[in-house]
């Protein structure tokens, strides 16, 4: 078995392996783990410095070969989740900018309400007599 190959431990309906967190972020591991919730139960544990242990327990009986295959699928999904994370991070600010631009007026008050609110704000700002300031909190003077 080469060093790059996933080291797995298999027992009844369960396969365990550990992941180097310096290679795969916890976010990536959890993203992959979530997608296995329909296949079985997922247990994550920290078993050493920057090492995360993943244990997958199947809902139904599984052969040793099936358990090894399950671990292999998990390892493959880790790569895909890592790519997705990179794509998300590389485009995050741009997406937020576009989303804000697109939805600027989508869920706020109507145009008329906004204009009225702006006018109110302007009037307040120009209020030399501090009329809207509560008596309990008078401005200085």
């Amino acid at each position, binding site marked *: 078995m080469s060093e790059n190959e996933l080291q797995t431990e298999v027992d009844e309906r369960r396969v365990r392996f550990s992941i180097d967190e310096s290679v795969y972020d916890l976010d990536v591991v959890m993203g992959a783990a979530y997608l296995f919730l329909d296949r079985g139960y997922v247990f994550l544990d920290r078993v050493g410095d920057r090492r995360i242990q993943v244990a997958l327990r199947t809902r139904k009986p599984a052969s040793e070969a099936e358990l090894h295959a399950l671990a292999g699928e998990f390892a493959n*999904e880790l790569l895909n989740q890592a790519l997705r994370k990179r794509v998300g991070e590389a485009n995050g600010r741009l*997406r937020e900018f576009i989303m804000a631009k697109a939805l600027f007026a989508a869920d706020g008050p109507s145009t008329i309400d906004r204009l009225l609110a702006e006018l109110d704000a302007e009037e307040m700002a120009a209020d030399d007599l501090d009329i809207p300031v509560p008596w309990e909190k008078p401005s200085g003077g």
Partner: protein
Amino acid sequence: MLTPLKVDPTTFDEGSVGYFRYGMVGDKVLLTNDVGEHLFLTPEEFRRFIAGQVQADEPLYANLRKRYFLKRDLDVEQFATKLRRKKAFLQNGPHLHAIVTTLRCNHACRYCHASRTDMTATDTDMSLETARKVVDFAFRSPTPVLGFEFQGGEPTANFPVIRFVVDYALEKNRYENKELLLSTVTNLTLMDEEKMHFLLDRGVSICTSLDGPADLHDKNRGWMEKQSSHATVTGWMDKFNAEWVRRGFDPDLFHVDALMTTTRASLSRGRDIVDEYVNRGIRSLHLRPLNPFGFAVNTWQQVGYTMDEFLAFYRSTLDYIIELNRKGVFVQERLASVFLTKMFTPDDPNYSDCRSPCGSGSAQLAYNFDGSIYTDDEGRMAAHMGNDFFKLGHVDTSSFDEILRHPTVKALKVASIQDALPACHSCVHKPTCGVQPLHNYMFDGDIFGQRPRSRKCQEFYGVQQYLYQLLSNDTDGSLERIFRRWTIQRSRPGTTPYAPASEVTA
């Protein structure tokens, strides 16, 4: 949901590649993005794409650029405009107002999701005073399109409320000038000539339940009268349709619509069901799976099935529908048309169950017979199962603003914004999909649920995966032409005329 594709994330070129989601469809890699664009690549093309190795003079580059998959040369303004149009539904308030006129029903369907009572329980009838308050309340929605849908029980069991709401809404709309849509769900078994003409005169759309041929329909939909429900339903469908024709309306647009519910007995009857619909002139068929809540919980062993079994039924029935279209028979599958509209048009069909965020409490409201206001009909059903979590208020005491800003509505929105949901946020089908937290709640007792274990997720994912699979093999574009036709929704002109009762001629 897993992606059986070997990728090397270290080769990703941050500078040139825009945001995309991906998944495998057969042996191709499907790319999608936030404005609903999609593109199929070979695995080798995908490898070069993520590495930023596609050259500007390649046709693939133009394809990627045109569909906004490249950060380099991205037209941000245009992209934002498209996104804004896709999310246009956020700018309007609730447009669909479901009114439960009564819980009484003369059927005892094996899979009934709605709460129902016996026909003697008139204490579950809505009063005219409550009905007036419901209409007044609904008209406060800022939406330019306002729809009232009568539900039950069997809504026509309390026809005076239907009559009142229709006439009052039409009268009120003379001053409100909204696009008013009126419809009733009905099993048609309490219909008579007078009611029919009332509904037709005022442009009320009719939607009934038709599960397929007589034997299948009658098996699913038990009727207290011990007669054939199918014969009665189809008899009235024919009468309505004939009357529309007699009045000079286009039968392709004006006919009784129908919904079917898939039970275990339906799984081997896809072709029969489609034929039944086509033969009755219904051009839109929604292959709806059964949900394990309501009365169906108790009968699940007899009528239920796995989602894999449903999807096999869906695929084979959709194949038959496509086969008919290729022969010139126009008929569409409704859920497919929702997804295809998202894939092929700049708009979102605003289908409440398949939106992000969902439409519960923000696109639709449900009014129980007693005037209680719920997020939607599922929320009302949850209440009848003993949980009032989705009750937002009451027409006697609540303001419209309170309802829209209700913590439960906010919670449902948070639970259905796919960009923030595990698995959804990176799912290849996210741009064309949606989440209905009420389904999660009914199934799991949790509005967030777990996507991989959700039947609704499995259904939506499976249907979209199949549509893309068909499109990926559509070498001559003939299927895309059929699918694009399914995205054209012709409106029914003149369905909301104002005609005071005294001027109406039967």
